[in-house]
């Protein structure tokens, strides 16, 4: 069994003249939570759909769980799980019956009740899908994505429209799944979500990989200069430094007591991300930043 679950190199996809995916290379080892970030139109969805076997590529090679997704069969499908971005139509039967029916498609599914417990829908087992709240609906989508006991789970913007509390609960669910060894490919617009969950983050823009790494080191974030700012006679002042500790000590020595409104700031993932996207806009193929963060 290979240690690398997803391997793609030189991935290409054209829509007419437009190169939606322009040579993407990815390698995701087993057990990793890997997050794809990027503005709308960056090629995220196309890339994920190629990996899921829902779209044909125009160039490059892809191996997912050792097979080429565009020709892989039922046995391969039994090893992956997909949580779609869009809410989808479900039969009008109780939640537990839907999950049980989907379980019947797989050779060795998880237990139905165990899965409902895991996604927190035990109390809704007898309810119809139509009667669920948005967050509960999403949990049902996840239940259907994991019922087959997938080795690889695709999560496409799983928490869009969640309130903060529901999002935290959902993150815990994803961590639990990752803890059980499921490899997860997470597509998201929420940078704090990628930061909270992902082992590694890949920023796509204009169909290319702009940055790849752990969320806390992405784009040179860990080594970037810190900004120390404070207030002096009502005027905001700031310095950029490689040694924020020394800067703060010097400041402290210069003031009689507290340094007014002292702040030490390192670039957030969001700032690093926006910087990467801006570079891309400079290259002439971005322009959807506001939309991506909306």
């Amino acid at each position, binding site marked *: *069994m290979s240690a690398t679950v997803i391997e793609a190199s030189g991935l290409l996809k054209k829509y007419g003249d437009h190169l939606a995916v322009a040579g993407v290379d990815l390698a995701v080892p*087993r057990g990793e939570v890997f997050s794809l970030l990027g503005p709308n139109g960056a090629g995220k969805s196309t890339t994920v*759909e190629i990996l*899921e076997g*829902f*779209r044909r590529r125009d160039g490059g090679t892809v191996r997912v769980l050792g097979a080429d997704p565009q020709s892989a069969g*039922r*046995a391969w*499908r*039994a*090893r*992956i799980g*997909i949580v*779609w971005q*869009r*809410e*989808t*139509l*479900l*039969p*009008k*039967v109780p939640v537990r*019956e839907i999950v049980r*029916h*989907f379980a*019947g*498609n*797989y*050779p*060795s599914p998880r237990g139905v009740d165990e899965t409902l417990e895991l996604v927190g829908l035990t109390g809704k087992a007898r309810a*119809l899908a139509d009667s669920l709240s948005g967050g509960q609906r999403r949990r049902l989508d996840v239940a*259907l994505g994991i019922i*087959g*006991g*997938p*080795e690889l789970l695709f999560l496409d913007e799983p928490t869009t429209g969640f309130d903060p509390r529901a999002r935290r609960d959902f993150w815990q669910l994803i961590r639990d799944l990752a803890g*059980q*060894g*499921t490899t997860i490919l997470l597509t998201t617009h929420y940078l704090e979500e990628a930061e909270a969950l992902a082992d590694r983050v890949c920023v796509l823009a204009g169909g290319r990989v702009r940055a790849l790494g752990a969320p806390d080191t992405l784009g040179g974030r860990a080594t970037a200069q810190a900004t120390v700012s404070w207030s002096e006679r009502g005027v905001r002042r700031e310095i950029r430094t490689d040694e924020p500790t020394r800067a703060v000590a010097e400041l402290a020595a210069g003031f009689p007591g507290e340094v007014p409104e002292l702040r030490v700031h390192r670039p957030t993932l969001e700032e690093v991300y926006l910087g990467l996207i801006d570079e891309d806009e400079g290259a002439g193929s971005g322009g959807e930043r506001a939309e991506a963060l909306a």
Partner: protein
Amino acid sequence: MSGTRIDDVRLPGTLRVGLSRGWLEIRSFVREWESVVFTFALPALILVMFASIFDGMFDMGMPAVDHYLPGLFAMGLMSVSFQTLGAGIATERDQGGLRRLRGTPMPPTAYFLGKTLLVFFLAVGQAVLLLGVAALAFGGQMPRTGADWLTLVWVLVLGTTACSLLGIAVSSLARTAQAASTIVVVPFLALQFTSGVFVPVTVLPDGVLAVASLFPLLWMAQGMRAAFYPDGMAALEASGSWDLHLVALALGAWCVVGLVLVLLTFRWKTRKDG
């Protein structure tokens, strides 16, 4: 999971998954009261109204219930097959239900097996409901001989099959779920008025009759009249005969054409899904 899975795992059989889908489809259908009323109970409601209102109003040579039963039965069969599948599958496709299924190891054949079970469950239900209402509420005439019952059965099976395949094919024409109900309902309504369901075929203009003869509903209604009407009534058909061989030929041809159309056009995704 454990990471020790091998590729030759035993996948669930197509028949088992298909039966499970059929059961799910049936339970899901009966919970949609709109579809139960409009596609399942409507012919019976019309029969009740026609049998009560029109009886003795025109010279039909028989009670109104007997006059209208075969045509409404044919309409009911087309409703539960063509309309149920045409609008239903378009909605499933538009709202991502089909794509979700395609993302699982479900064998594609199992999906169609499930639809087949749903449609034949509804077709048999349609027969029980319409014949039951006609016989119990109005003392309607049932098929007279074993041969007539056999005619009823083969017209039901062939007609329902042809209309199901047409419905699946039509579902692919619609870009959205809303468009689908129009694409399905309008031609179906036009056919009802030109295929001998409400208006006898003999009073239709030749051109209209010729166009309607290209579609299955006219032949289903004719086959059902052959099963329910006394033999003497054949004189009132367009050709003066039941022409059951033509009924079989037309419906059989539509099964073949419908199957080809389905194989050529069926998609699991919408156009915008790529």
